[in-house]
């Protein structure tokens, strides 16, 4: 048996419709959307427009044009941080953020931006009262991961969004782990910005990221260039999505993403969430029964990602043995989130992360648990 439990990195396997759509575009369409009036270009444009509509629908955005396609969530986050923040600006971020937030903030700090960390509890959930106190002083932005990529901790996004709205500070929500699992209503929540990737729980191919920016927030683009619109003008168009979408888009990726989101909408996001979180709870319960295994449980769970360590074993070794002896794919280490690992007390070796997806079944989970039990028994 071969078991893939690394869906928090990227979902696998993709629905057949995703694979076929990406292939069909390469085989039959092959044009650049918005860069021509011929049939191929028109069809390409229709695919992108439909993908944008579906993406807007799943993220709770009424106007699809406010949905911007980038290359990944990291680019979306960089676009916001580097466009919105200026020297002297104070930015608040949670102690569970990914390096896609921490690294750009570290660079911006060297240019005079003032990042301040909002503490999180031992399970990784943000301390809301501290955030409210921190918001009493002027801040330019709050950055919050919706669901931790390390242990699946679900942040109190409604309460944080409300606190940010009261303080008139925009909230950038990193929904890389939640989009496709958690219902998101970006506009109802009053989010300032939302960033996510298309290849995780949204089930699309890698190479597509998503960004939503609230219309009243004037965030300059990260790049300028050809958009297929207003080509007579030397300046970048001001309207969305063209303002942020320079250069040829990833058409196979978008065609696949359209089908991935279609699959989720058809299946029902609550069904997907219940399946993945149900497997995660089962995993946590079973892992706690294995002697010498420590699980880093969140106070509230928002995805299927479960992190653990085997006492006395480097997580990389545990993952290596699961791979070599049992053909089980898990992620090990810091998961590009050293700060989150410090919060959970798992720095510098990190954890073993098991992340089931919608296609994972209970037999897959049992197979993994038996593999881990073999490892632990061998060490006894």
């Amino acid at each position, binding site marked *: 048996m071969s078991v893939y439990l690394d869906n928090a990195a990227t979902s696998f396997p993709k629905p057949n419709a995703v694979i076929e759509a990406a292939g069909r575009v390469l085989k039959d369409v092959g044009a650049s959307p918005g860069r021509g009036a011929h049939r191929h270009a028109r069809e390409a444009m229709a695919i992108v427009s439909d993908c944008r509509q579906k993406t807007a629908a799943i993220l709770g955005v009424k106007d699809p044009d406010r949905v911007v396609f980038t290359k990944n969530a990291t680019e979306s986050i960089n676009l916001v941080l580097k466009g919105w923040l200026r020297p002297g600006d104070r930015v608040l971020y949670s102690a569970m953020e990914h390096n896609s937030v921490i690294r750009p903030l570290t660079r911006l700090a060297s240019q005079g931006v003032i990042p301040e960390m909002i503490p999180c509890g031992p399970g990784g959930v943000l301390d809301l009262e501290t955030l409210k106190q921190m918001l009493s002083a002027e801040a330019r932005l709050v950055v919050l991961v919706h669901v931790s990529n390390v242990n699946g901790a679900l942040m109190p996004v409604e309460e944080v969004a409300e606190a940010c709205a009261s303080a008139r500070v925009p909230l950038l929500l990193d929904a890389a782990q939640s989009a496709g699992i958690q219902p998101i209503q970006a506009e109802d929540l009053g989010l300032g910005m939302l960033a996510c990737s298309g290849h995780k729980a949204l089930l699309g191919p890698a190479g597509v990221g998503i960004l939503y920016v609230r219309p009243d927030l004037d965030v300059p683009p990260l790049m300028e260039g050809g958009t297929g619109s207003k080509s007579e003008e030397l300046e970048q168009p001001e309207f969305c999505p063209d303002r942020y979408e320079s250069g040829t888009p990833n058409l196979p990726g978008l065609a696949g993403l359209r089908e991935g989101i279609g699959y989720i909408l058809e299946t029902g996001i609550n069904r997907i969430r219940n399946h993945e979180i149900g497997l995660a709870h089962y995993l946590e319960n079973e892992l706690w029964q294995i002697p010498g295994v420590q699980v880093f449980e969140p106070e509230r769970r928002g995805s299927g990602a479960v992190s653990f360590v085997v006492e*006395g*074993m*480097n*997580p*990389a*070794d545990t*993952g*290596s*043995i699961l*791979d*070599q*002896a*049992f053909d089980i794919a898990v*992620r*090990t*280490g*810091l*998961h*590009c989130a050293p700060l989150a*690992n410090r919060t959970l007390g798992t720095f*510098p*070796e*990190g954890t073993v992360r098991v992340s089931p997806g919608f296609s994972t079944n209970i037999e897959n989970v049992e197979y993994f648990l038996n593999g881990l039990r*073999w*490892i632990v028994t*061998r*060490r006894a």
Partner: protein
Amino acid sequence: MNSGEAPENSAFEEAAPARVGIYDRSGKKLDQPRWVVRERPVTLYMNDREVVTLLCAGHHLDELAVGFLYTEGFLRSPEDILGIAIDHEAGTVKISAREDGSITERLWQKRTISSGCAKGSLFYFSLDALLSKPVKSDIRITPGRILDRLEDLNHLSEIYRRTHGVHNTALADSDKVILFRDDIGRHNAVDMVVGHVFLNRIPLEDKMLITTGRLTSELLIKAAKVNIPILVSRNTATSLAIELAASLGITLIGFARAGKFTVYSGEERLDVGLPG
């Protein structure tokens, strides 16, 4: 011959005379024999599956096979062993065991794979990472006793004196050498000691292992797998062995000769008579 009994550990079985040419500076040839150590291949089988062929001196093959298969993770306890069949002429040792060992076989000699996303592992083989644990021991020993036991080892190796062709290994407590083994390979000698203590259920937390070989990571990992707290050699240690010793709580002592030694790791086990 097909027997579970090892042949006598006799210098005359391990060594053989070889007719050689010995010359002095003037070119004069001295026609006299030299004693050389025997070397022979021995293939280990586990439940009829070939595991490895070792080049060795050819004695204590049951201990060698069991020690090797235990430190490599194929055996877990003496109860696992259903039978040991040794064929000295064919150079084979066949062990039948309760577990089939197929999962271990998948891991055998596989290198650990690190993602580069965290502080990585010190181990380079997956089975070593799986089976090595920090050593638990309260043993404390005086430097004098360590040097005394090393001296004992030097007197025990008749084959070495005759051939200069073997590595010696001894298991000792502070008072005496408990077990002595030699072989053409330093790992073989250590595996024989491990095999003996495994088969005879000898606890190791109050013992030290003395070897004439270099203190490498492989030796260190073997010690960690069987809970030996002190490793002593008259030879030097490698950098990875020192790192692993610190991480696995092993006292690592090298250059033990001429009345002194070098401690690379775990000095706290030395009883140097200082007030507590």
